[in-house]
């Protein structure tokens, strides 16, 4: 199977506390550590496992500037034979539909049986996969936590639904699946793995190469625009306990005992 996996470079939630920059227009990005979006990492692992079973290639794609190359190569090192970076000043400020439009153009430029995305990224919108499927007129399934391939015929997939139950579906290919965390255990990528893919050429495509008119994407095409970031006023914020570890522990014991938390 020929598989395309869409990945996004995001501030690493394990490495950063997010704070708002001086004018509120953006978060403070100066000292941020970036990594691949956690959901996308599971999507890449799943794609590599499918390709190992069925044969075929995995291609990693990202809409990003030059900084995106490191993340694309790191994901390639998990077992993808190709990468693709979609870069253009005109792409900056894209909303979800803009990003999906760029990815759809890249998808049409190749011949894929399956496209995987992460179920969501740092903005929590969970939108690009579904939009991509609609733009391509392919069937779609979101929050996928199981993919089984048959030699011939539809995929058998599981969707995670509210309450933790699993909905089993059959879906025809080509299709788009958005992948949920926990579907697999993503493999570790070491320096050696990254070195192995360092010599693979990483094509870069811009709006013209993709046949996208600039006004349909980026800030120009965006119907959804973030005006600023803010920290909401805390409703009923917690009473904070301070002191030495001993003092804190004593206070917690008192509170738990008073609330019936120690039996």
């Amino acid at each position, binding site marked *: 199977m020929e598989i395309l996996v869409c990945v996004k470079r995001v*501030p690493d*939630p*394990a490495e950063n*506390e*997010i704070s*708002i920059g001086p004018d509120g227009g953006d978060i403070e990005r100066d000292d941020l550590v970036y990594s691949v979006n956690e959901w996308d990492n599971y999507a890449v692992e799943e794609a590599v496992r499918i390709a190992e079973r069925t044969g075929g290639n995995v291609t990693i794609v990202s809409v990003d500037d030059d900084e995106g190359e490191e993340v694309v190569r790191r994901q390639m090192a998990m077992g993808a034979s190709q990468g693709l970076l979609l870069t253009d000043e005109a792409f900056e400020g894209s909303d*979800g*539909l803009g990003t*999906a439009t760029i990815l759809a153009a890249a998808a049409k430029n190749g011949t894929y049986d399956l496209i995987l995305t992460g179920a969501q990224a740092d903005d*929590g*919108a969970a*939108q*690009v996969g*579904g*939009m991509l499927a*609609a*733009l391509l007129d392919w*069937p*779609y*399934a*979101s*929050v996928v936590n199981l993919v089984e391939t048959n030699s011939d015929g539809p995929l*058998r997939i599981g969707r*995670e*639904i*509210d*309450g*933790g*139950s*699993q*909905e089993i*579906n*059959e*879906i*025809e290919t080509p299709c788009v699946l958005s992948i949920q*965390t926990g579907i697999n*255990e993503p493999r570790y990528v070491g320096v050696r793995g990254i070195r192995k893919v360092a010599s693979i050429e990483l094509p870069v495509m811009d709006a013209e190469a993709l046949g996208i008119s600039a006004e349909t994407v980026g800030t120009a095409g965006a*119907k*959804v*625009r*973030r*005006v600023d970031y*803010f*920290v909401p006023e*805390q409703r009923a*914020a*917690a*009473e*904070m306990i*301070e002191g030495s*570890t001993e003092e*804190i*522990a004593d206070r*917690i*014991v008192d509170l*738990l005992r008073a*609330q*019936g*938390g*120690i039996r």
Partner: protein
Amino acid sequence: MDARVFVYVAHSAGTIDDTALELATAAQRLFPGSSPTAIVAGSGVDAVAREAARSFDEVWKLDTEALAYPNAELLRPLLVKLLTPGSMTLLPHNTFGLDLGPGLAVRLGATYVPDVVDADGLEGTTLKVVRQEFAGQVSAHVHCNVANGAVITIRPGAFPAAQSGSASGQVVDRSTDADGIAARRRFVELIEAETGDVDITREEVLVSVGRGIGDEENLALVEELSEAMGAAVCCSRPIIDAKWLENSRQVGTSGKTVKPKVYLALGISGSFQHLGGVKGNPFLLAVNKNPKAPIFQSADVGVVADLMDLLPVLTEKIRQGH
């Protein structure tokens, strides 16, 4: 505003979902004075449609065997056919809404406005909403051009449920529009979540552990504390994804809904998906090393501390107290 407003009414076991009445509230906040049309889709949904008609002036019923299970791939082309161009459609931001919504917006040529937590008003064709990013660490004011309509998903729990009214709205049967619908994705079966060895939904005192515990071996500190307290251990999603605890221990919208009296949250950031599974207003004590963790907005008592330092001391003190 002249655009027609639609609200998707989710339901299960013959009863409308809490989200439907939350969407009714959200519709009034986003589009004051609108009279939303409820959409009830399924098989054998007369009673659900009548229930929805107590809260909505008009209910469109899509009653067909094909929709016995709510398959977004089947429903999407049907809604594209039925919904008035330029209309505003509200869905819950849950695993159904995010299956249906993004593609529906594309197909309708409408703007997609995902995971709305608050409304800032409508000015002309600009809809102003509040969203959250970075797992709730920051909020954002977002302006959306909705001149060609919008598909809007509303975060469950973000808006209070409207009072279930006693009005008698009109039920309009649009089922024949569903004749011959087909999709390239077919529902096969539902596999129910496991209960596991400990049923955390019945426990009164829960010690809940999240990503902040760092390593699997550190879980022993949590288990020792829980044992000293006479509590049960549960967790947030990252612990399940790492396969450190059984699925049946997960609290959240994608796990169990618990109703304890005391909830001790250790190294849990406090995403809405996690807190969505904590009901019954327990005494919530949170320990996190990040003073900005959103959990401190929901907790009764908060402690900024390193779990590795605090937990052994706390466990020892509780043991001594017995």
